[in-house]
């Protein structure tokens, strides 16, 4: 049924990242396609189209030039537009599974749809997202946005010699999630693994890897999560000197902070608690 045309337009504004999915879905229902949401402003609709975090501002003004800078300084990514502006078209989404779940409310049990989405770019970034919703389209969009918020780089490797692009994992990595323990092992050619971790690795064009699993249970979600954790460990275990803890706060020399304050003060002031601003 035409659930799109509900009343006059945008839903009530919710500022939390969890509701980001609902907002994006509402905009798409109103006829927008999911391009960069920073590109224009719509008056009177209460939709935020300017970045609301400091990294977001810096990315929009092209002061931060690549996603790796964000990783190197351990900044949390709270806006999916950051990922979009760097990776944009190279991100591919793969819906791993859609399943019904029963949710408990005060009144009764309700059935909802839960989606698992893997997204990855051929530049070596991968991510997973989960979202639960009434409609499949909302769930998929929400999961994609959540995945973009938790995107991580993967350190890739070559077998024996550096010919063209890297195609396998750099060594052996292990990780566990729940009851599933996975090993990712380098190989010259051939992807041998269960279907779910295989799809995850194929989104970043890792063609060759052995994925061996310790306990083979019926739960498929845990191997996916374990594969994701293993990938995130490739950098942290094998190249720990690059990643250091940092603190993001005002520095004595104002520099670019002034620039942000000057050019972006005219932000929406409602609701005020959603701003991440230091005083």
């Amino acid at each position, binding site marked *: 049924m*035409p659930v799109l045309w509900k009343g006059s337009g945008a839903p009530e504004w919710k500022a939390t990242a969890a509701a980001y999915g609902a907002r994006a879905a509402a905009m798409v*229902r109103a006829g927008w396609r999911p391009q960069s949401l920073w590109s224009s402003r719509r008056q009177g609709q209460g939709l935020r189209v300017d970045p609301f975090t400091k990294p977001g501002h810096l990315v929009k003004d092209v002061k931060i030039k690549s996603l790796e800078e964000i990783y190197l300084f351990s900044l949390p990514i709270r806006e999916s537009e950051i990922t979009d502006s760097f990776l944009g078209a190279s991100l591919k989404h793969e819906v791993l599974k859609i399943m019904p779940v029963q949710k408990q409310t005060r009144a009764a049990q309700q059935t909802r749809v839960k989606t698992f989405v893997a997204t990855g770019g051929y530049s070596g970034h991968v991510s997973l997202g989960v979202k639960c919703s009434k409609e499949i389209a909302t769930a998929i969009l929400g999961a994609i946005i959540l995945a973009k918020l938790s995107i991580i780089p993967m350190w890739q490797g*070559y077998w024996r010699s550096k010919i063209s692009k*890297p195609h396998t994992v750099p060594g052996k990595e292990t990780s566990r999630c729940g009851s599933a323990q996975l090993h990712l092992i380098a190989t010259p050619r051939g992807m041998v693994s*269960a279907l779910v971790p295989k799809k995850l690795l194929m989104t970043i064009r890792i063609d060759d890897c052995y994925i061996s699993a310790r306990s083979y249970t019926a739960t498929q979600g*845990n191997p*996916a999560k374990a594969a994701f954790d293993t990938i995130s460990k490739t950098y942290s275990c094998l190249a720990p000197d690059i990643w250091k803890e940092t603190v993001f706060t005002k520095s004595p020399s104002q520099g670019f902070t002034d620039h942000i304050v000057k050019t972006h003060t005219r932000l929406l002031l409602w609701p005020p608690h959603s701003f991440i601003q230091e005083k």
Partner: protein
Amino acid sequence: MAAPETQGAAAGGEEDCEGNHSEAWGVSYEDSKDCILEPLSLPESPGGTTALEGSPSVPCIFCEEHFPMDEQDKLLKHMIIEHKMVIADVKLVADFQRYILYWRKRFTEQPITDFCSVIRINSTAPLEEQDNYFLLCDVLPEDRLLREELQKQRLKEILEQQQQERNDNSFHGICMFCNEEFFGNRSVLLNHMAREHAFNIGLPDNIVNCNDFLCTLQKKLDNLQCLYCEKTFRDKNTLKDHMRKKQHRRINPKNREYDQFYVINYLELGKSWEEVQLEDDRDLLDHPEDDWSDWEERPDSAVCLFCEKQAETIEKLCVHMEDAHEFDLLRIKSELGLNFYQQVKLVNFIRRQIHQCRCYGCHVKFKSKAELRTHMEEAKHTSLLPARKTWDQPEYYFPTYENDTLLCTLSDSESDLTAQEQNGNITVISEDTSKLHALKRSSILNQLLLQEGLKN
């Protein structure tokens, strides 16, 4: 049970050229005569639920009369008149045939009054005019469970159907308004109609059975009927003008006929999509959104090295191979001290030999796998592994079967997980990180972040 594997074009015909193994990387398979040219796959494990074989008629619960599937009402009428049986909320039952068959079986086991409430009519009249009717409704817990089960089943089927349609790129459709053709995914056509003609029936992901839906709409238009107000017009142009002027380029939300095409209507029986939309999700009590563990599916089975037996866990498979074929993988692994890569090579080697119906103990070739199996069991050649250099070759890194689950369950011995390859020659080079160091030094974030944090 399992069908024999897909026959690759194994060119290893009559001759036996074993000596052509080479160490070089770019070994072209065409060199050796016993090469396998096409990818092989192991048989998949048999699927989960079996669909009810299509008997297109539904029998009555009590007697042997059959009625066709489409004529539920006749069956219900028959049951009321002949057997005095009423089913409550029959329209909400997800799968009528299964429901009836289930109760048919149950009524033979226990008397009907155990399940149905009895309704007495004409109770004030004299005794001969009184009558008892039986009502089967979901107050009975068993009935409610059955209905919920059928509902879940149907939702799963619908979601699978939707998944198929989402991944299906062979769709071909014609736009209803401009007669342009579209190929690929159904979302291409739907997005076109939404963008160009402002005709929106919903996001493609929320729709199931898209082809049928579009056919229904097309039929309506061909009958010169407006899609929204459903009035009939004289000819096509009048219809087009009407739809354009009155903004009727949408479908009637009250028309129940379209309910079957939207997934939201299958979520819960008895609730219309309007009610589901109005439900506030903020009331949800438990919110483990990123709980991955409730995704359950049957695990892929591993196939035995020598026969077609499939087992779901590696332990069961090892036990089977030990009992039936006297092949103890774990013992071989510990005796020869194999690490992960060597185990992989060994498994691929054995698979290749078995596929080509050759015994690796005595190098005799057989006509069929069954003969080979009997030979190996009698002569006990399963544990007669050839010398290491026969199978410890780089070409056996390549998996013989593309979906070999057994390879996924091999593991290194615990102590070996961090040790380097004993034989040497395995080098895995990782990507360059010097660029990242340079990036870190040159980033402007150095100025914006606290100075102390960078002093490492």
